Structures are given as structure tokens and as C-alpha cells.
């Protein structure tokens, strides 16, 4: 099992993501620099970490989504490579077209950081199968632009296809239909604004994030 974390300029949760992957797989994650052009073929799972890639300038995730490495990421996603984006990583995924919708500025306009209760909407995805029927988890959130937006047709389709994986219990940012995390049609690409990688150790105040990493690793 080999995992990787992509680092963009001013990614700042890359180390946190790598620690989570190492904890679950028992092996250090490979760090991939954004200017590289190819994700090594032996990588089984890629995380796009949180942070402020390119300072959130222009639009969150927009510049990073044009990085050389993202071209190969898109190609490999289409072939079924599991890819997860947390926070800024989710924004990069929507900007690169791997997931539908967009992340707008939080409704109350302020940055918000708090432990956030989420409901698991679909426990049968590659990212949630190990939660074994658990209905609620708490992951920290920390973002300024987490207000998920998509048109009604897209939202309806996401819901109909069971691709809304997590919803906020108590919407912190104005997201449409309380959506916190979604998967693509193939079920291999997942994005969410909350930070499961910051909920993997009792010191964090909870370990609810482990289930997500265990689920995707188990599915490979």
C-alpha cells in the first residue's frame, strides 16, 4: 500500500495528511511536489491537503488546479485512482473539474474554526465503509471559503446517486443542502471541507477521522 500527498506552494496540512496516512498504512506517505508531472504508477491513494495554495489568490484552489501534477492527477482519476481532497484540496478538486460545484465564501463571511458534527449520509462508499453503521462523527473545520454551491440539477443528481457522503449537522458556512463532502460518479474521488486528518489521535480530542482513512485503504 503506497500513498502520496501533493504539496502546492502554501499547502499547510501536507504534513498532517502524511501523518494520518502513515498512522493507518504503517508506511510513510510519499510527498509529491506540484511541479512534478507524473504520479508514480505504484501509488495507490493520493491526498490533496488543506492549506492556502498560492495564498488563495485569484480563487481558492484555482491556480493549484493548473499545476503540472494536476494534469496527471486528472488522467489517473479517470482511470480510477482513489484521490481525496480535504479543505483546500477539495477546492482544488472542484476547480480542476474532478468534482462538481464550487466553494464560495462562508455565508457569515468570517473564517470559522471549530469541531463540527457531521452526519454520515452514505455509509457504503469507499470512504465510509468502515464506520460500521455509525451515523455521526466530529471533524474539525477551519476555512473561509467552505460554502458549497452547485445548481439544483447537480445537487439533485448528487443526492439521487448517493454521492453526498457527509452533511453538516448545524450548517457552519451556508453550504447548499448542508453538504460537507461528496464523491465523483466513480466513487474514487472524494472531497470535503472538514479535516479528518486532524481527528486521528486522542490528543486531537477525538479519533473519528481514522474511519475515513481506514475505509479507503481497505477498499484498495
Amino acid at each position, binding site marked *: 500500500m503506497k500513498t502520496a500527498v501533493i504539496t502546492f*506552494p*502554501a499547502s*499547510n*496540512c501536507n*504534513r*498532517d495528511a502524511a*501523518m494520518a496516512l502513515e498512522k493507518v498504512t504503517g508506511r510513510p506517505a510519499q510527498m509529491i511536489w506540484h511541479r512534478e508531472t507524473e504520479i508514480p504508477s505504484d501509488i495507490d491513494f493520493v491526498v490533496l491537503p*488543506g*492549506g*492556502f495554495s*498560492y*495564498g*488563495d*489568490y485569484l480563487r481558492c484552489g484555482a491556480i493549484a488546479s493548473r499545476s503540472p501534477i494536476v494534469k496527471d492527477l486528472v488522467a489517473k482519476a479517470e482511470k480510477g485512482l482513489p484521490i481525496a481532497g480535504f479543505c483546500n484540496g477539495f477546492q482544488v478538486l472542484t476547480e480542476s473539474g474532478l468534482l462538481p460545484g464550487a466553494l464560495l465564501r462562508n455565508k457569515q463571511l*468570517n*473564517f*470559522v*474554526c*471549530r*469541531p463540527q458534527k457531521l452526519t454520515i449520509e452514505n455509509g457504503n462508499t469507499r470512504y465510509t465503509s468502515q464506520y460500521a453503521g455509525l451515523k455521526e462523527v466530529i471533524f*474539525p473545520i*477551519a476555512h*473561509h471559503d467552505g460554502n458549497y454551491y452547485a445548481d439544483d440539477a447537480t445537487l439533485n443528481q448528487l443526492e439521487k446517486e448517493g454521492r453526498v457522503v457527509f452533511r453538516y449537522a448545524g450548517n457552519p458556512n451556508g453550504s447548499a443542502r448542508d453538504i460537507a463532502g461528496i464523491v465523483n460518479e466513480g466513487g474514487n474521488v472524494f472531497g470535503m471541507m472538514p*479535516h479528518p*486528518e*486532524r481527528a*486521528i*489521535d486522542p*490528543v*486531537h480530542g477525538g479519533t473519528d477521522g481514522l474511519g475515513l482513512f481506514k475505509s479507503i485503504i481497505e477498499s484498495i
Partner: protein
Amino acid sequence: MAKKKSEITPEIVAEHGLTPEEYEIILDRVGREPNLTELGIFSVMWSEHCSYKSSRRHLGKFLTKGKRVIQGPGENAGVIDIDDGDAIIFKMESHNHPSYIEPYQGAATGVGGIMRDVFTMGARPIALMNALRFGEPDHWKTRQLVKGVVAGIGGYGNCVGVPTVGGETNFHKGYNGNILVNAMCVGLADADNVFYSAAKGVGNPIFYVGSKTGRDGIHGATMASAEFDDDSEEKRPTVQVGDPFTEKLLIEACLELMATDAIIAIQDMGAAGLTSSSIEMADKGGVGIQLNLDKVPQREPNMTAYEMMLSESQERMLMVIKPGKEKLAYEIFEKWELDVALIGKTTDTGRLVLKHNRKKVCDIPIAPLADDAPNLDRPYVIPAGQPVLSHSEVWETQDYNDALVRIMSHPNIASKRWIWEQYDRHVMADTVDSSQSGGDAAIVRIHGKNKAVAITTDCTPRYCYADPYEGGKQCVAETWRNLTAVGADPIAITDCLNFGNPERPDIMGQFVGCIEGMNEACRAFAYPVVSGNVSLYNETNGVAIPPTPAVGGVGLIPDLEHFATLKGAQEGDTLVLIGETEGWLGASIYLSVINSREEGAPPPVDLEVEKRNGDYVRSLIRGRRVHAVHDCSDGGLAVTACEMAFGSNIGMQLSRSNDIPTHAWLFGEDQGRYLLAVEEHSVNPVISTAHSKGIPAQVVGKVGGNRIIADGAFDVTLEGLREKHEAWLPALMNKTDA
């Protein structure tokens, strides 16, 4: 060239904040009339902000050495040893004047600057703290300032990816004209890979790295060395603009280069930019410096030498590289897409020589810039202490429910959630405890290890105002107590000394009094000052801020199996109070909120008692004798119990254990006290051991239920009180203008 002779008029000298006497010294040391660039360089180096001319002789009194001190004051930040080859590098700094004029950028660049001070020395920043003071909540400027400062701190720290884990925020009319924004950064380094600023050797290349130089912030240091008046808004152009994205790249690039053996000396360009960084490096290393300003990356065309040397553009570093390592430096900085330029070299002349447009534009000796900086012995009068207030001189409320609600929702006690929810407190995934729990100190794990640092900031300006000496002692003692209350060994402090105009003997007296009190506490606890900053002239139209010596304390929790917070109180626990309660109401929150009076002597701190009580509490935490601990300070026992109840999410019932009047019992602010939640079976041993050591300890109540009760005084629901405690700040910030 006859015209050149009259270039520097007395008016120009005065505009540069220099006295005629200081100008005479410059003429003597330079040996001729300086040109404008040279005058500008002397002006910033001799400004209050850079030279500490009013404070230097007093700062020298501080205890600065200790067995864990690797580097005390005099470098970019202080360095302490936390065992296992790890070092903690930390400092607190003010950004008061710019934050008042331009709150977002002022606060943001304050955070950026203090982080640079820390990573310049080889540390990865791991935590940020801040101590903020604003004017009255209803003052017309306050909301705008709170909003801007908080957004600026969050906007910078969140982007760089360093958690903002704690701090304090106060409101008082004394800050209506001058807010205080004090930011602290704590970093982690290898103890044997700490970087210093002394340039060494001759002919070594000097590299400029980071953002381009623009015209922002010219004379910021001079601005921070003068009082405000009604035209202060016009100083907006002297405020710098921050770019946290570049800062993040700069951190990563510098740490990457520091992991190689390429750097001789490194210094960030903070106040007075290229001038102070180059001169400090040269002066400390005893070398000269020659710079070619044409090579300096510039944001705007046609900048003059004067502008480049005095610009305070942010996110810039200067470093002396080992010959032969130039290529490596270029490679790393280019990888991170940062501007990098070889702009000069060290020399053996002892002079600062600048070239611009192929002309020599500055040639002055370096030593006088530092050695001959004014070192003033300003007259001072330490204000007489205020009389001690007896219990009967303080009006006792007839409605304790109302009093409790008013105090718990008072601006200085109410929840600051609206502020800290805008800060990323968890990035880096090592935050153990933060503002989120309202505890005494933030706790941040050392990455990959089972130990942690505890960090706190504290200051009680109303005590310092009432009695600078006792207040100064109390600031240091409270940080020591905060660190102790989480189970840490307090190690050292940084300070940010915010005062009014030092040219006034009463203000200078506050300054000297506070320092002497602080120093006595430092010595009693073997708790040295390792870094800090002085901010004077916090004064508008002759009205000074209350004396505010903010203290940032750092301690070590050697084993994360043994620490405490206020969150752990459990149903059935007994509340035990350590320390003596006399019911001190002078200069208290109760007196201010319920009696609308700010007077009386502040509670004295008996340092010996403080240490004895604290050492005992720490031993109880390490022996797992307690479920929860909270320092008893602002608002006394009642507020302490409420905060523990909120943190633990469980009710508390306080019962009488003495016969002092109720208001003094509940709200007296006697020092050296801790409230403990103790499991039933440990109560007797905890109390009897305390008594055997001569430490006052008594049962003051029980934990349980969902109400907060004090016998014969108040009885309210936990949730109802919490609602009031949480509601105040959002209500203020969401108010729409009429």
C-alpha cells in the same frame, strides 16, 4: 556643489525625530555633513523603536540567565532548552501603532514579523498567541478595530499554517485612542542548529531573499516612536502590507537552506528594514558591509537609496552565505519561487557603504549607529500606591444572580469565541488544548514526541495602574501560575512593555515600577526574560494607555500523560481551593463592574507563597490526584468556578468555608490560588498533605448537576449563564449601525 552644504536643515533633522544634540554627534562620527540617506539611517537606528533609548538602562536589570536559557535578549528571539536536543524559540512583539491606523494590515504584519523573528533563528513556528487591548466597546472606533485586527491575525496565521492557540482580549476606555496588538510566536528547533545574526568573515556574499522592496512602511519605526494626534490617520501610508503566502514560502525555503551547512548569519528585515538588518548583522559580527542597491529586487521603478534603506516591505530576509554555497542558495529559493539576489558582501572596513546607480550614496561607520545610540536616563516618579480598600468600603450587591450574570457577560470576562473561532487552532495537528476550552495555558505537543509546551500570555493593567510594582509582579506571577495550572514547569518569559510617553516622569515611573516588580518575580521563580520588546508613546493628545506590560510565558510538560486542564471536572468531584482567601476587592473586577469604581490597592503577590502553592499543585497534577485545575484570578472564586463549569460542562456548588463577607468571598482576587476538582477519595490526602506543608487548602464545594450555585448568594442554570457569557461579543460585533 555649494547647495549640498545646506541640504540638511534643522527642519529636516527635526522631521527625522533627531534632537540637535543627537545631530551634533552624527556630524562628529561621520566627520562631515551626512547626506539624506545617511541621516535617514541614523534616524531609524536611533529611534526609540530600534535603539530602546528610554528603556535600555532599565531592561538591563532583568534576570536573563537560567539553566535552560540558550540565548537571552539581544537576538531575534529567545532560545530555551527543552531536553532531548529540542529548543524552543519565542518572542512577543507589539504592532500597536500600525494596527490602530490600519487594523487588518497592522495586525497581519505584526503576526508576520514575529514569525520571522522566530524562523530566522532556525525554528519552525508551531504556535501563535496574541494579547489585544481595545477601547470601550461602545466607542465608535472599537468594533471596526476588533473586526480588522482579528481578521488580520487570522488572515495571516491561518494562511501560513501556524495555529493561533490562545491569547487574551480586554476592553477599557484607556485604550480608546491607542489599541494594543501584541503577537507572540513559539517555534521548535534543534538545539544544536540555532542560527544567529552576527555576520562573520570578510568577502562573504550577502543575499537578499523574499518579497521585493517597495515604498511601503517608510519610517514605520519612527512612527512607532511618537505620540498620536488628530492627524494620525494621515500616517496610513507608513503601514506595511502583508503577504502570508510569501511568508509561508520563505519559512519553507529558509528551513530547507538551514538544513544544509550554508548560512553564516541571517536576519529578517523588520522595523527599519534593510538598514537595521544589515547594520545589526555587521555590528554584531564586527565587520563592514557593502551593498549594491541596484541589485535589490524592487517593486516600483525609480526608488531612491533613501527609500530602499528605510522601506519596511514585509517578508524579506538578509543572509550571509558561506562562499561556495551560492548555487545551493539560488536553487532552493528559486524552487520556492522567491526573489533572491546577491546584493553585497562583508568587508573589513567597519563601514556601511552603499552604491546606487554606480555612485556611492552612503559611507558611514557602523559602530556609532549601535554604540552611540542615545541611552537616556529619563527622570521618573513611581506613582504612590493606592490605599487598601476594606470589605466594608465596597458595596455589597443585594442580588447575586444579577451580579454574577453581569460579571460573566462583562467585556473583560465574557467569552471571546467570536474572536478565536476565526483562528485556525489545530493546523499542524499537535494542538492539545487551546482557547477553545478557556483554560489557563495553551498546550502544544512537540511533533512526534510525547511532551508538550504550555504557553500563556497575561497582564492585568488595572493592577499595574493602581501600583506598578505590585502589578508588574502579578503579571509575571500569573503567567507562572497559568503554566503551573496545566502541569508545566515554567521556564522563561518574553515581554511586550506597552506604555505611554516616556518623556513624562509619571509614565516613566510606571515603566520603571513595572519592570522592577516583574524582575523581582522573575528572580523568585528563576523564570528569566529571554526576549521582548518595548512599545512607548502609546498616547493620544496627551492621554496615555494604562501601563500594560504583557508577559508571554512558556513551560514544559515533560510527559503528556500528566497534564491538567479545566475541562476534566466530573460529577461527584469535590472542589478544593489552594491558597489563602482574604477577599481582596481593591482594583477588582467586582469593584469595577458592580461598584463602577476603579481604585484601591491591587492584591499583593507573596512570591514565596505563590511558588510553594504552585509547586504543590504541579505535584498533584503529576501524581494524578486531580481531575481539573483552574487558576483563580480575574473575578475571583466565582468566575473561576463558572469557567471550570463551562469547560467541564457540569454544574458547581460553592459552599461557605469562612466568615468573610459574601462579595469578598466570591469575587475577591487574592493571588496564589488554584481551584481543583478532586475525586472523593483523594480529598483528604490532598488537603492533609497541603496542611503539612503549611499550604492553605479547603473544601469549597462540589461538582455536579446543571446549576451554578453559591450558598446564600447565587443560583443559576449552567446553560442560562453560558448563554449570557457567549452572547456579549457576537451581539456587539453584529450590531448594525443606527
